[in-house]
């Protein structure tokens, strides 16, 4: 059997407190690293800003979904009652729009909610059965009580020994390399 050569995905470090991670994220960014990611057991306040994240696309996708649901819902009822199967009931208008509002409203909400959730999952690339970060030692703590930061090997500034020392310098615990497979 030929042993596959293992690639390095990155270097991971661990913190006990969310504030320490936010502090480290700022320092890593200032040091010029671009490809790094934090892993936390809950959304940490201030971390997206510290990592230089801007607004995301989820609200826009939700808005578009809602518009499609609302316009589509009303349009369909209009088409069904005015063109597809018009029924003249005591001379009342075929386009009796107030009566179409409840269904239009519900479809707006339904499509917006589905777009919000599916859009969020798609942008996050989920479901994704495996990711190299799961190889990290002690990574199960990322869903419990520890705050991780991983600097990835694809970053131009990445040098295994230097980067590891840099993370230790930020007082990260258990600094170790993460393998690709």
């Amino acid at each position, binding site marked *: 059997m030929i042993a596959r050569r293992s690639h390095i995905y990155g270097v991971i470090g661990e913190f006990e407190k969310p504030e320490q991670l936010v502090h480290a994220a700022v320092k890593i960014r200032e040091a010029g690293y671009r490809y790094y990611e934090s*892993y*936390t057991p*809950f*959304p940490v306040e201030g971390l997206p800003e510290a990592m230089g994240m801007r607004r995301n696309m989820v609200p826009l996708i939700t808005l578009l979904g809602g518009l499609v649901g609302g316009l589509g819902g009303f349009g369909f009822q209009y088409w*069904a009652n005015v063109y597809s199967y018009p029924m003249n009931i005591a001379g009342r208008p075929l386009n009796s729009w107030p009566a179409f509002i409840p269904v239009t409203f519900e479809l707006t909400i339904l499509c917006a*909610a589905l777009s919000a*959730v599916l859009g969020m999952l798609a942008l996050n690339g989920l479901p994704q059965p495996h990711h190299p970060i799961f190889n990290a030692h002690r990574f199960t703590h990322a869903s419990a009580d520890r705050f991780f930061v991983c600097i990835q090997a694809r970053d131009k500034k990445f040098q295994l020994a230097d980067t590891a020392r840099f993370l230790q310098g930020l007082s990260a615990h258990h600094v170790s390399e993460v393998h690709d497979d």
Partner: protein
Amino acid sequence: MSAGQPPFDSPEISRLTPVLGPGHTYSSVTDKISAIVLTRPTSLGWYIGFLLAFSVFGVLNIAIGWLIMKGVGIWGINIPIGWGFAIVNFVWWIGIGHAGTLISAILFLLNQKWRTSINRFAEAMTLFAVACAGIFPLIHTGRPWYAFWMFPYPSVMGIWPQFRSPLIWDVFAVSTYGTVSLLFWFVGLIPDLATLRDRSTTKAKQIIYGMLAMGWRGSARHWHRYQSAYLLLAGLATPLVLSVHTVVSFDFSIAIVPGWHTTIFPPYFVAGAIYSGFAMVITIAIPLRKAYGLEDFITMRHLENMAKVMLATGLIVAYGYFFEFFMSLYSGNKFDVFLVHQRLHGPYAPFYYALILCNILIPQLLWFQKMRTNVVVLFLMSIVVNVGMWLERFVIIVISLTRDFMPSAWGRYSPTIWDWATFIGTMGMFVMLIFLFVRVLPAISIAEMRELVTETSEEHK
């Protein structure tokens, strides 16, 4: 006033009573909540409770099976009372669901920290209540296998559903509500499923929770989008929850039947829904925290706040009853006046008085803090309110339909054993689902409790 001193000093329970017991850390909340699912042995009490509920669920299956064989004639419905138990129970169950969405969405938008430990099981309760509610209109159609006719699909019949009918609005409102509640609940569960995946010790559990968690790894970029999606879902669920019972009330108020044709119906139905929903959350929360020792997480502050919401919505409901009454008399419409007379003196008057007792008089005890903080009283009160809200729907449907315009069209209604079997059967299904839920999924949001640990530790600095 010195710093750190509370602006007011009420005894026992105040705004400063913690929403989380003291001394908790990230790992202690994680351990304690996930242990209920992963490591604690299943107790004998769980098995007994589950089996009891499961047998009652069996009764539901028999009742529905018999109904499908024989038709709706096995029920007590007749002409003129075509709605009967099926619609009473539908409105009751769907109303109960409303508290879950209110807690998870509206209190989230209002930044109420105390929602954190009760939102997960309140949302589960919503889903299960909507499932119970959905059964009734379905089997009430008489031929449930044609229920898909209610959805607009291109059929060989070449026609569309009647979009001007409140009954079709109901189809859209309830199915949207069920779907959005499921999405909201599931999105909230994803990080916790990842926690369970990482803490499971057996292969089977790792695979099942792992698949459900979809590879969640808590990355900051993921959390960023996750928070946007969650906030948007809360914003979307808020008008949705108000619309659902509004649409349900349209089933009545669009009709011209005396006692139904009133504009106060939508707001007072929504208030009534939240009222009965909070009662049901209390009914579940009190045994749950006792059985699993969750008094640190579901504190007296939670119970007291829920009692206050119950009192407030109960007063709105009382206001609704009063104005329903007043407008009937003030309108001078003889059918409406007659309906008031029927409620007070007709053959179903005892139900009306029982309704006033359960929904208006007894809950006034909640004005007293001693009552709000007494677990036994609160539990009994929540049952009383649930009974009262069921009676409300019974009174609305049965009294109006048995006494409408023409004396020759009057009738009487009494449920048969199959009506009761179906109704009690859905309660069995509801309780069974709750039992399964607390056993296999975290009944309290672990990720949000960790956030609460951070926030409460900042407060004590």
